[in-house]
């Protein structure tokens, strides 16, 4: 049954789909809409899924869903609201001072990733948070493995530069 197959195949990867969508959209409400639409598509195309690649397959659908929404919009920059709902879950075991420091660092790193162009941002998210191999990322993003490699390297270099700059600016305060 398609519904049972869907529950077994797609639902276990809902968190991963949402995390990816959240990093693409930079907005929780929009990420929910993207994942919802993607799941309906996934349900429809379930029969095209081969056995082995449900998670990467779902990422590709999430990505296509998001891109078609974005391209429908007249002005992408205006339509992309700023990130308002930060749902950082922090370690409550830390003392207040440490927690503040951690909160601060996490916010800086998150902001730095969100500022990256989406081509770099998505490969970093798929690699660092989802642990996808280069080959799997290449299949999701539909570029050659060499492109995945160079986007990862350049994305990380930019991230490093931004974070170093931020750290340097902090010392000037």
């Amino acid at each position: 049954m398609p519904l049972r197959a869907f529950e077994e195949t797609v639902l276990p990867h809902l968190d991963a789909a949402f995390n990816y969508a959240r990093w693409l959209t930079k907005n929780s409400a929009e990420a929910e809409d993207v994942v919802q639409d993607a799941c309906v598509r996934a349900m429809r195309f379930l029969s095209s899924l081969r056995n082995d690649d449900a998670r990467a397959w779902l990422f590709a659908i999430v990505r296509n869903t998001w891109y078609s929404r974005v391209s429908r919009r007249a002005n992408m920059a205006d339509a992309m609201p700023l990130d308002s709902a930060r749902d950082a879950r922090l370690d409550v075991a830390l003392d207040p001072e440490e927690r503040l420091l951690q909160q601060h660092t996490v916010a800086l790193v998150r902001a730095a990733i969100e500022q990256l162009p989406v081509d770099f941002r998505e490969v970093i998210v798929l690699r660092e948070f989802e642990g996808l191999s280069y080959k799997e990322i290449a299949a999701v993003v539909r570029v050659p493995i060499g492109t995945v490699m160079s986007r990862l390297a350049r994305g990380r270099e930019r991230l490093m530069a931004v974070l170093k700059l931020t750290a340097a600016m902090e010392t000037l305060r």
Partner: protein
Amino acid sequence: MSCEHVERDLDSYLDNELDAATTMDVRGHLNECAACRRRVNEREALGRLVRAVPYHSAPDRLRARVLAETTRTSSVRRLLTWAAAAVLVISVGGGGISLWRSAATHGDAMVDQVVDSHVRSLMASHLFDVESTDQHTVKPWFLGKLDFAPPVADLASIGFPLVGGRLDYVGGRPVAALVYQRQRHTINVFVSPALSDVSTRADVRSLRGFHIHHWVRGGMSFWAVSDLNEAELTQFCGALEAS
């Protein structure tokens, strides 16, 4: 190997995407070059910072919305899907079947069962019966609960800490499930006595977005399941086999 080569391969090296020979070359160079070592350390620190950013888990209301929507669509689609599947089977013959999600094409119900069990353990928040990072706590816990003693190794030193164990039921018999963690990824290792004493090399499969490794060693059958990438799961299984 020169600094330029190492710089070019830096990300692939840290992401375990290099072949064994090149990895050895990079390691050799790092032993001798402090500048490249610093670069590697910096990149590793960056990776830790990035991964410390909290994961965005799907809100419960999204799960509910998705289920409600797909249940509604499925009743309409069911007929269409079966009609489409029928057309597919008729038009491409037996080959069409392989497009359909089914463990039967793998010819191995065990693969389906270990993946089901893995998914269940993550969804039902019943990952552990015994939660401990200490192999000397986990191993004795199974005593008296199973008619065999599963070997329990801790691989924390190479970045795969043991986090607990539980009793599970796979392939029509009780098995020991050992739970390991790699960053955000959970690895379930199902251990039970093998049907034969003959050791086998790892048989690697993928199903529904999970990777599965199966091998037999010391009369025990091992099934490792995770959504971890293939390279790291292979590294984990290699270390477990060698332990």
